[in-house]
């Protein structure tokens, strides 16, 4: 019987496969594949520019051309489904010449100053020009020129480098559902424009920076704060303090040639200490603190009948998204500041006191996987210390560049510890960097606080993983607590629309703006794609498992902080320093 069933199954599989002749070689591929995917399955990675996994195929750049027998013209493999018996040539003279001609056309409307570009050596256009052996550009002529748009606190747009592949537009629309940008004008004068032709800084852009990962060239990059941080380091009057986010330690090794998914906490600390920071603190510390504050807030709402579901507030991209598109859920969002801002507020108050330095003489910098953090630290509400609590936010990429400028090879550094007392953290804080992590960390604390019992099993597998929306029901001593987790704002929109419509009822929701959570943030090393995200997530959970303390409320430094300085969780001082408020923003 089993054999028969197996045969049926393989027959069905047969039906769903088609036979192709790829470069004179017979192959079988799933009938639903595109020609591009079929070629990949056969080990041939057709060059592309406008194509990106996870986005609707576009077919605009005309680089992924192949020759298909019987077709009157060359075919863009990314938008062409396979057919039984298709005969495909991927490197005929005609194909090679056509790809090269279109690449040259793109280059003819692109600055050829790679040395001056943010994406030098990580540019797909540059790579293709090398791979295709372009030695001169035959088609010279007028180039489109636009002013660099520096209006956004997070994302810099240099449209002269834009090749109109539209990956940023599709990312913003399809992954994030923000629709901040679109094509404008037409023909040779086409360009990519935010709302109503205004600068990006005046648009609904939520600063997540996912468009930067989507961009194959240097048209999009972060607004840099490298110079300001150097100036602070070189200023003898200033005490310069750094914090590093949970997601940095699993990605900062990549620019130094370490394998994706390497945990390099100690080398990271050693490197940045050598860069000249006076103290290197850990955002994981304030992540633990966030769990105490947010956990307390949740328990209060749960037990005293507050507004539910409670929605997390660590992701500044998500916060701006909520302010634009879901202001009616504003009261559902936790008032907790993000860990970056909690750290800033503490450093310029608690720690300043401790070391006897005035807050005005402290420069607080952070390394974040996030471009929205650059915007978050500039928000008016983020001045609990009387000064801007966090002065500069560097992306992982900027931070790596600073190390390289100084000549520090992170991979060869010794392992060192964070500074005390804001450098001690738990496994709960470590998982903040991955989607589901904040929820998992919160549940570990909430369960034990509510029940007074020790959690039998610390790993909440239901909220882990790369599914867009994850759900779990946690039995808290007879009370079923319903939680949901989403990452990528398109997924968040799906989830929130259901919440808003009353189709689902949750107690607690985690939302992260970026796919995969912070490890997939807009400030992370390039490339950041699904594969890389998975490796970083794996590293995050490995780190959690390796730590002696895995629950935020067990962090001794946190306990001491409340005793010495903050008083009660959600107390008056905590409220002043660690909580914030939001405001409605225009939907367009």
């Amino acid at each position: 019987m089993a054999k028969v069933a197996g045969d049926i199954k393989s027959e069905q599989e047969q039906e769903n496969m088609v036979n192709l002749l790829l470069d004179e070689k017979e192959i079988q591929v799933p009938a639903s594949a595109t020609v591009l995917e079929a070629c990949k399955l056969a080990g041939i990675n057709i060059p592309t520019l406008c194509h990106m996994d996870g986005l609707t195929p576009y077919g605009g750049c005309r680089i992924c051309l192949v020759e298909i027998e019987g077709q009157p013209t060359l075919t863009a493999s990314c938008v062409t489904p396979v057919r039984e018996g298709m005969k495909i040539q991927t490197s005929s003279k005609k194909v090679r010449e056509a790809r090269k001609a279109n690449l040259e056309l793109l280059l003819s409307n692109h600055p050829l100053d790679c040395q001056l570009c943010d994406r030098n050596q990580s540019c797909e256009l540059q790579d293709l020009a090398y791979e295709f052996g372009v030695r001169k550009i035959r088609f010279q002529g007028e180039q489109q020129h636009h002013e660099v748009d520096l209006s956004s606190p997070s994302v810099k747009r240099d449209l002269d480098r834009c090749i109109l592949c539209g990956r940023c537009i599709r990312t913003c629309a399809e992954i994030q559902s923000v629709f901040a940008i679109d094509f404008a004008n037409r023909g040779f004068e086409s360009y990519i424009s935010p709302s109503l032709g205004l600068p990006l800084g005046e648009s609904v852009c939520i600063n997540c920076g996912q468009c930067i990962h989507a961009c194959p060239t240097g048209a999009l990059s972060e607004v840099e704060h490298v110079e300001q941080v150097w100036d602070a380091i070189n200023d003898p009057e200033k005490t310069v303090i750094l914090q590093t986010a949970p997601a940095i330690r699993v990605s900062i090794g990549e620019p130094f040639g370490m394998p994706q998914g390497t945990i390099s906490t100690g080398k990271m600390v050693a490197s940045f200490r050598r860069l000249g920071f006076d103290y290197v603190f850990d955002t994981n510390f304030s992540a633990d603190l966030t769990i105490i504050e947010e956990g307390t807030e949740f328990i209060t709402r749960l037990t005293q009948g507050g507004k539910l579901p409670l929605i997390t507030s660590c992701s500044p991209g998500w916060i701006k998204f909520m302010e634009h598109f879901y202001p009616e859920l504003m009261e559902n969002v936790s008032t907790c500041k993000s860990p970056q801002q909690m750290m800033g507020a503490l450093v310029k108050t608690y720690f300043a006191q401790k070391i006897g330095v005035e807050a005005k003489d402290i420069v607080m910098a952070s390394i974040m996987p996030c471009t929205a953090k650059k915007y978050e630290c500039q928000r008016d509400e983020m001045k609990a210390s009387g000064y801007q609590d966090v002065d500069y936010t560097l992306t992982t990429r900027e931070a790596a560049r600073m190390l390289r400028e100084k000549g520090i090879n992170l991979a060869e550094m010794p392992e060192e510890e964070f500074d005390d007392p804001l450098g001690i953290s738990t496994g709960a804080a470590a998982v903040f960097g991955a989607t589901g992590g904040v929820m998992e960390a919160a549940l570990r604390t909430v369960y034990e606080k509510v029940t007074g019992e020790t959690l039998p099993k610390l790993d909440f597998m239901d909220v882990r993983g790369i599914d867009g929306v994850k759900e779990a029901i946690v039995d808290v001593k007879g009370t079923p607590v319903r939680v949901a987790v989403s990452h990528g704002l398109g997924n968040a929109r799906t989830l929130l629309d259901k919440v808003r419509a009353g189709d689902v009822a949750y107690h607690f929701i985690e939302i992260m703006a970026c796919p995969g959570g912070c490890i997939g943030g807009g400030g992370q090393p390039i490339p950041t794609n699904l594969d890389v995200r998975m490796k970083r997530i794996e590293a995050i959970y490995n780190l959690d498992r390796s730590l002696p303390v895995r629950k935020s409320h067990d962090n001794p430094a946190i306990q001491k902080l409340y005793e010495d300085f903050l008083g009660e969780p959600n107390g008056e001082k905590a409220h002043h320093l660690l909580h914030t408020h939001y405001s409605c923003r225009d939907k367009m």
Partner: protein
Amino acid sequence: MLYRAHVLVEMTSNSIHLGASQVKERLEREIAQAGLSSEIKVLETGPLGGGVPSPFLMVYPDNVMYAPVHVSDIEEIVTEHLLKGRPVERLIAAGARPERKEGYFQPSPLAKEKRVVLRNSGLIDPGSIEDYIARDGYLALGKALSMTRQQVVDMIKDSGLLGRGGAGFPTGLKLEFTMKAAGDEKYVVCNADEGEPGTFKDRLILEGDPHSILEAMAICAYAVGADEGYIYIRAEYPESIRAVEKAIESATESGLLGDGILGSDFSFRAKIRQGAGAYICGEETSLLESIEGKRGEPRVKPPYPPQAGLWGKPTAINNVETLASIPPIILHGADWFKNIGTPTCPGTKVFTLTGNVNMLGLIEVPMGITLRELLYDVGGGIRGGREMKVVQTGGPSGGTMTPDMLDVPMAFDTLTQFNSALGSGALIVIDDSHCIVDVVKNFCEFFLHESCGKCTPCRIGNKRIVEILDRIQRGKGQENDLELLRILGENMKETSFCGLGQAAPNPLMKCLDYFREEFEKHVTEHLCDCQVCEMKPKRKKLSV
């Protein structure tokens, strides 16, 4: 009220600026002054085509046509003809006094004229649904409703009707695909975004016989199972928009559009959507994007519109001229249609004659007519007694014909054999006073302006082509420029996203081939024999 006579005044965007409004106004005044207002009715009508000069007057039941008519002629026509019954011989259009025959009225001097899609143009008041009904209007719809959907589709399939928008795809198949596509919500769309330079046939059909389009759309809707249709008309055609608006209104009032048409359970509503100045929207998927309120960029195909068209629903999109052929096919049968035109390309085609030809205008003739007949018999030859240099058929994206191709039969398949294309039926006649570089640059500038910018080869390729042609025109051509033009053109043709990008380099490629010497002379000798290009003319040394 019964009238003794009707006088039709041609009222189209063409004729209006040639004084048609003033002619009509004067006519009504003179008729009133002569006390004939209760006996003679003045009506507006659409174009007649067939090289009849504008504006014309048609007097029924006398079948007398005056063309062209000037305001100063009106007094005489009223007093002599309408009052005294003596037609003004000196004003009668040449060859315009045929006997009234069964079937189609043939006012043209050209024996070959055959009116199928223009069957009513110039003969009825396009604003009057009664006029349309009186000439068998909506009869085909009634007949279709008595047939099964499959029978309607089969009849159109059997007729061999090919899409008249330019691509020549079998209309019946398109309808069948849409009919067979899964889903309850389906649409029919009329493509009246006639942007191909030199083409104005659709405008004249819409202005002269708008009901024929509504009837055809209803028939298609019935066949495919749609109950809603959109007519996408370009913004440049305000008259057409008004004519169709009025037709929709009166057809709805008469119960020929709306719910339960002609006592059946078939319902159909038609709506107008306006273009806003984008040639690319003539491409069917761009047109759909535009109706959806987006930028008119072409969609990835497959899926094709019959599977997933307007708002993702199965959609049958047809060109105006194609649609106008459908009611007669339903009424007279597939065989009747197949007897017109060529065996592989049945039916008629409306050609528009433009450029350096004596008689500008349009004519409907059976497929298979030769360019010579069109140019010399209909068009009266090249202006100023010059020679034909080239005729661009089907507009810039179509084919290029040189004098040696004058006798090739004009049909979709035959022209393809001669490396040309029928396209929309536009004929841009260019005489030998024109420089080929200048003409080709004009075509390429058009595509540069109209490229949507989605794909690399069309967006940047067009720009580079125009830049090179421009420098050649200024006497700054470089040695390998012609080779670069060839590479760029070939690349656009081979790699552009949509049909329009692929067709854009057609005239460039053909003319580079046919007029190689003229191009080379521009590049190497900096000489423009036609003295069109403003390059410093190099004085040629006379050989003694």
